């Protein structure tokens, strides 16, 4: 441990503890991991940004099909490039942590799935989502009729007000009944 090991002050640590679902150890670990991603000269800056390209190389995110979406959702960058500050990173970990509530998890899940950021899941979003879930390989892809069938089935189930899209409250309604969403929507460093 050197001087660069951790620069979190006690005060901000306790504040982060208060504001996230993470424990002290987890925050410290997150800070350590985050500073590893930073360039040398950035290590002293408080709101240094790590570009998305680096974040998604984290082993926890590497094989996640939504890794880029996750970065974009949690990024507060003005350029919309998906780069994360440490606080954004903590937000991410908090939302994916064990003790986060269903509400917050489903909120972020919705934003992750909302590929065009328009506040609803429409057919295009759902199609992209299916493609993400079935992987990149071509043979795994669903045919267009299958896709149509699938999306219409989904809308039939969860689009309660029948406006052709799934909005946040409908999404949360569906998710809240799912037995294993909370346990699977988790990332642990």
């Amino acid at each position, binding site marked *: 441990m050197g001087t660069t090991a951790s620069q979190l002050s006690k005060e901000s640590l306790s504040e982060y503890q208060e504001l996230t679902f993470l424990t002290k150890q987890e925050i410290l670990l997150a800070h350590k991991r985050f500073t590893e991603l930073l360039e040398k000269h950035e290590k002293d800056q408080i709101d240094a940004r790590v570009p998305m390209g680096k974040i998604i190389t984290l082993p926890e995110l590497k094989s996640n099909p939504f890794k880029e979406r996750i970065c974009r959702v949690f990024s507060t960058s003005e350029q919309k490039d998906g780069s994360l500050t440490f606080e954004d990173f903590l937000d991410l970990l908090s939302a994916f942590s064990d003790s986060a509530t269903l509400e917050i998890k489903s909120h972020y899940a919705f934003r992750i799935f909302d590929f065009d950021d328009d506040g609803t899941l429409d057919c295009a979003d759902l199609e992209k989502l299916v493609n993400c*879930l079935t992987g990149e390989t071509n043979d795994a892809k669903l045919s267009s009729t299958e896709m149509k069938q699938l999306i219409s089935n989904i809308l039939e189930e969860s689009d309660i007000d029948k406006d052709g899209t799934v909005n946040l409250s409908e999404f949360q309604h569906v998710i809240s*009944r799912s037995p294993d969403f909370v346990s699977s929507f988790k990332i642990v460093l």
Partner: protein
Amino acid sequence: MSTAGEQDAGLSLQEEHESKTHRTKRRDGDRQKKKRRNERRKGGTRAGEGEEDLQAVSEKRERSKRKRAKSKQETSRRENNEEEEAQLTGGKGTKARKDIRNEKTRRMEKEEVREVEENVDKGKKKQGSTKKGEKKEDGGKQLVKGKAREVKKKKHKKAETRYSEPETSEEDDDEEEDNDKDVVRLECLSPEELEKLKEAVDERKKLIQSLRGKPWAMKKKLVTLRESQEFVEKYEGALGKGKGRKLYAYKVLMTKKWMKFQRDFENFKTGCSIVTVASYFLFLRWMYGINMILFGLTFGLVMVPEALMGRPYGSMPRKTVPRAEEASAMDFAVLWDFGGYAQYSVLFYGYYNNQRTVGWLKFRMPLSYFLVGVGTVAYSYMVVIRTMARNANESGVGDDNSFNFSWKMFTSWDYLIGNAETADNKFASITTSFKEAILEEQESHKDDNIHLTRFLRVLANFLVLCCLAGSGYLIYFVVRRSQKFALDGLENHTWWERNEVNMVMSLLGMFCPMLFDVISTLENYHPRVALQWQLGRIFALFLGNLYTFIIALMDEINLKRKEEKIVKFNITTWEASLYNGTVSENSTASPVTIHPADVPRGPCWETMVGQEFVRLIISDTMTTYITLLIGDFLRAVLVRFLNYCWCWDLEAGFPSYSEFDVSGNVLGLIFNQGMIWMGSFYAPCLPALNVIRLHVSMYLQCWAVMCCNVPQERVFKASGSNNFYMAMLLVILFLSTLPAIYTIVSIPPSFDCGPFSGKNRMFDVIHETLESDFPPWFSKVFSYASNPGLVLPFILLMVLAIYYLQSTSKSYREANVELKKKLQMQNEENKRKNKRAALKAQMDLEEARMTAQEQQRNNNASVQDQESGSLNSNINKEY
């Protein structure tokens, strides 16, 4: 601690800086608040509070920035000025009342300032701890300070959230001063204002609590948090009065600590989990918790008191190994079978004495034994039913299948997956599940040869029934045979013949499910339904086996009781002969003392039952572990290493790696628990054994899953959230308590062993206690309460309540559907309305434009007439 110290040392410089700014900020904040409060008092409402806060924050920041630039003296001077300003603005309304207070606050403020100045004089880096007068070198000092601060922080949770300065003693002083001021001020507050303040504080607290559940960016959260915390801490300590305040602070501290502890504990509890099988381990952990409590009950209230305060080993016949068995009582083989010394110990029912009280505590041993037995069952019922109710709440109103596709879509990805291989597997399984679901959806609309499927299903059920009956008969046969062996004497038989019953049961439990699996392919059910059928069948198999076992045990109990009668008769004649002998030989001699090991005794059927259960558990555990080692580990090793020199691909082909069978394992666990419930009355050691077993299997299975299993293709969730398993558990609980209760109520206990010996029935211990330990009116009341005239109406009432609740829930469900429909309708209507409104707006717009153009046309020269005309026509066309 040491690392923290290091960090502190490393960070000290930064902190110094921060702390300085922070302190000024804080003092400023305090002043700001004073001002705010004064303002509020003036207005008497909370109306513009939010605005004020925002203002306050921005002002605060600005000021602190400015302040940093200026020199210290100036700052303090300005502070004084500001203070006065604040007082001036604040004091307009109630000046007379406040004059005294202002004086006081001013004085304190000055004191504070003086302190600051003192510190400044001491040098820039030496803040705080001036009162302690430490004369150490800088570096060391900071380290010490850091540590001291940490200690302080633990003591003063309040300080932790609020202060960041490396001050120790000063901190306290500040706080006290603040509080004093608050008190002074609060005394002049009217009760309504106090109420309002309280409300505001509560609101802030709630905000802080819920802050982490808000999907905001961290910056926003931070700002809000700081603001609200300052507000809360300013006022909440002050709201209490005098001593109450300290108590309050203490309470706050304790609740905070308690919450932190709970959070840590939660984190600890969810230690390792592998995703697809996590549900099994969650269930295992849940069971472990229950068993811990059962173990605590039996261990703390039955085993320990008897071992410590009861009469020691060898003092009476029931606590001594009989003479005939003494030679082999310490052999491992005997101990492994829970005979010998193990049999005559606190582990089993027979060891307990029937003396009413034990030890200097006058502990009611038999009563305790009985109540623990009842309590175990009652507690288990309570937990299971409560969990079920909670799950029912969580899963909402019934219909599990309604979001099949959406769940597949939205919740199937597992974010914990961290390596590419697993991710690929997951992609593939998700794709197939999508395809399957689509296919099913298509198939559900057309039906194929229904007669054939029906026939096959009937056939499959017939085959399963045959299996069940066969296995039942096999067990019955084996148990009867083992009784014959037992009569012959176990020593004359081989190991297999001695352990036949347990082995056969374990083997049946292993192979029958496979058979069922094969049979179920005939039926062509939907996988989920098929799995439920499969589980139901295995359940029936286990249950059948267990009950045949119990019936056989009942036979044995009856045999033992016959034996007991003979022994009892023999004992009386033996005692008589002994007595006669002594009388005839020497009438004055003291009564002959016979070593307790030599006293003839009856066969203690309760201990026998307990032993059977313990053996069953042990052999079951062993089979589980051995199958784990051979079936999973050895197979995995062979597959991996033989794969290099084999003619076909072992990993992808026939043997491959084993899957972790979540549902089967959960069922095993449930049955294991059933046996515990059934046997724990006669063998108090069972919960302890089970705790050990669960603990070991948690880690062993965890290891096996990690290193030699592949995730299951189809996953059936088994955590506490699944009421299917909970229902099974409840059924098992009921069915396993049934025989235990039957034996307790209907069979008289053995005459010479156990805590209830000499009584006609085991529950007589209650009567006895009622009569001798309670005042007579109590037993009278009890007898009235237990009379059928009261009990029957009570039961009737309960049934009515259940009926009422059922019907209300039904109506709620209907209302739910109704509301859904309404929502849909409303939405459609809204859409229509919106469309109409949009149309109208468009028309208005067109009209306006037309009139504008007309005006323009009138004004303009005739050259443009043509153009506008064409435009107009265009618009008309568009329209």
